[in-house]
């Protein structure tokens, strides 16, 4: 039997995952359809969603499979596309101190742009822990796997663009970005990162712009904070 406290954690985690699921279902279906068209069977599609579990990398991989690419270039591309998770896991580690290797390894599997954004906000609010976060991760994971397999049977069961469902994830990201703003310096870092990302995305292929822009903006944020703190100390001292 599951400890009643754990089962309420489980429910909260599953319940909190709904915006991600709402976004994953249409994207997962679309991915399944594309993968089906590239010649993959529903089981092959499900296997990729289970092993890789990363939307944009899977889309790129399927288009490379469709154009007859070899295995190694696809794996290398996947690696660069998913390197951004390095930043997200680093940031999450602050909230997962002193956890065993087992739970951490399971947690790592579920780190995506979406689960990172949602869990990070919850952790910061303080009413969240790794069990709830893990339940959220695995719910989103299940929604992804199942919807890609269903799409793989050739069905775009939700008509493209219906009910503005394509905007579920952008709206979620916008809201979670707002939640991350806790002072002027965060606005500066966010605006800088966004503008740098746009500029980099125009000049560099792929999605390396995400890591480049975030690292630059966060580093500048640290220097700005140091600079402001120094200014404050010297005025207090005088």
């Amino acid at each position, binding site marked *: 039997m599951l400890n009643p406290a754990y089962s309420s954690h489980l429910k909260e985690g599953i319940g909190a995952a709904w*915006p991600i699921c709402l976004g994953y279902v249409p994207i997962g279906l679309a991915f399944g359809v594309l993968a089906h068209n590239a010649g993959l069977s529903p089981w092959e599609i499900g296997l990729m969603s289970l*092993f890789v579990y990363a939307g944009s990398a899977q889309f790129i991989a399927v288009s490379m499979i469709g154009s007859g690419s070899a295995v190694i270039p696809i794996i290398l591309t996947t690696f660069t596309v998913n390197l951004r998770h390095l930043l997200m896991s680093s940031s999450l580690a602050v909230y997962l101190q002193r956890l065993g290797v087992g739970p951490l390894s399971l947690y790592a599997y579920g780190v995506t742009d979406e689960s*990172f954004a949602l869990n990070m906000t919850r952790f910061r609010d303080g009413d969240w822990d790794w069990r709830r976060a893990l339940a959220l991760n695995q719910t989103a994971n299940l929604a992804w796997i199942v919807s890609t397999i269903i799409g793989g049977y050739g069905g775009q069961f939700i008509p493209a663009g219906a009910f503005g469902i394509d905007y579920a994830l952008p709206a*979620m990201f916008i809201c979670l970005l707002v939640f991350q703003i806790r002072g002027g310096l965060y606005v500066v870092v966010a605006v800088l990162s966004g503008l740098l990302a746009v500029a980099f995305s125009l000049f560099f292929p792929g999605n390396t712009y995400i890591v480049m822009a975030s690292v630059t903006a966060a580093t500048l944020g640290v220097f700005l904070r140091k600079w402001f703190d120094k200014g404050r100390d010297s005025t207090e001292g005088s």
Partner: protein
Amino acid sequence: MKTDYLFLVLGMGIVTYLPRWVPLIFLSRSRLPEWLRQWLDFIPAAVLSALILPALVTTGEPRHLTVFQPALLVSIPTLIFAWKTRSLAGTVIIGMALFWVARRFFS
């Protein structure tokens, strides 16, 4: 199922899993210096902004600027709504509804 394909998804899985796993294992068991904590504290805002803004103002591959598109237009009231209400559920629903309407006017 072809063994080639199995090798492919295993390889993709490993190179995706490692960047997710390594920082969690190493950073969660060491005392982080203050500057690193501050840096990591800025990462969510920076990453989210870097994910969103290019999606709102660029299109195509290779990307080019497309400022006049429903996604950007809708993002402004969505952002204001999120700021005022601080409700995730409300923001997602309002954003979807506005996008649905905006796309009908654009196309």
